[in-house]
């Protein structure tokens, strides 16, 4: 009986309390402010390192030649386009279940960032496609489902703009984010389910590398750099939106006065 009561107390009181404390915009703003300079330096540094490695030191492909160097920016962009959506969907779930404002801000920020990253995946893919496939674009399953992902991100922003200042805008966006989640497995398995021009995944941490190490290592650096960059840019957007939404609170006034 004692155990049941303490479990019940944890689920109904302790857990929501902890989430609300962690989800406090002020706590996030202050903590992330300390981390941001380091994250920024590390992500830009890793991006530069990866780019120099990919452009100057990675080997040319025996079939593709030097155009294979586009892989080092295309693959991480495509990975982040999908990971970013997943992170946005997690924020959407947290917002729907616990009504935490910070999760709504995180969802909005991830959508804006996701548009850029997905656009990059599509454009670098098209530029890489021209010399290797002989075409900028084909209506191939992987390409088409990634285009759908791009439109889903745009839909998130458009829906928020259309419902601005109306009650329930956060919830509507969260529902759209969760419905769009169905697209992620389609992108992932498109290369296995359909006969596509796009090659199957060549980069995975759970399988042995399918490419030589001198290509796999710079790609790993770039994937890490893109993740760090995503978090950095995400945090920057969240902080900016926190300031706007909380501008009339005492702590924002105090923070502004301290500058």
């Amino acid at each position, binding site marked *: 009986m004692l155990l049941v009561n303490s479990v019940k107390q944890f689920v109904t009181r302790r857990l929501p309390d902890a989430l609300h404390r962690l989800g406090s915009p002020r706590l996030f703003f202050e903590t992330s402010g300390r981390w941001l300079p380091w994250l*920024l330096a590390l992500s830009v540094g890793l*991006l530069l390192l990866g*780019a120099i490695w990919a*452009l*100057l*030191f*990675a*080997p*040319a492909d025996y079939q593709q*030649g*030097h*155009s294979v*160097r*586009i892989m080092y*920016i*295309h693959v991480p*962009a495509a990975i982040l386009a999908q990971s970013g959506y997943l992170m946005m969907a997690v924020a959407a779930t947290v917002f729907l279940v616990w009504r935490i404002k910070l999760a709504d801000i995180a969802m909005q920020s991830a959508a804006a*960032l996701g548009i*850029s990253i997905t*656009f*990059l995946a599509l*454009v*670098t893919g098209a*530029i*890489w496609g*021209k*010399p290797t496939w002989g075409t900028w674009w084909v209506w191939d399953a992987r390409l088409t489902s990634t285009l759908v992902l791009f439109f889903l991100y745009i839909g998130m922003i458009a829906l928020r703009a259309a419902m601005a200042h109306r009650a329930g805008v956060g919830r509507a966006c969260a529902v759209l984010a969760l419905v769009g989640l169905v697209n992620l497995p389609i992108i992932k398995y498109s290369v296995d389910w359909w006969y596509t021009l796009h090659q199957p995944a060549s980069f995975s941490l759970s399988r042995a590398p399918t490419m030589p190490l001198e290509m796999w290592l710079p790609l790993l650096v770039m994937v890490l750099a893109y993740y760090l*960059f995503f978090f*950095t*840019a995400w945090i*920057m*957007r969240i*902080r*900016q939106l926190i*300031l*706007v939404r909380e*501008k009339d609170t005492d702590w924002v006034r105090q923070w*502004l*006065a301290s*500058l």
Partner: protein
Amino acid sequence: MKFDSLVAFVQMDGQGLYVWAAYGITCLLLAMNLWIPAIRQLRFIRRHKRDAQSAQDRQE
């Protein structure tokens, strides 16, 4: 290093245009994603400082 000269590095056996276009647009878009929130935050701070200043002026 995989290139003998700067010219070879830029041309990349005739594929330079593709490679550099892809890297250029990536660089531009990533930079934009740092620039936009940074400039918005700066504007927010400036606007506030101005408002605070004018409020103070009115008081005096």
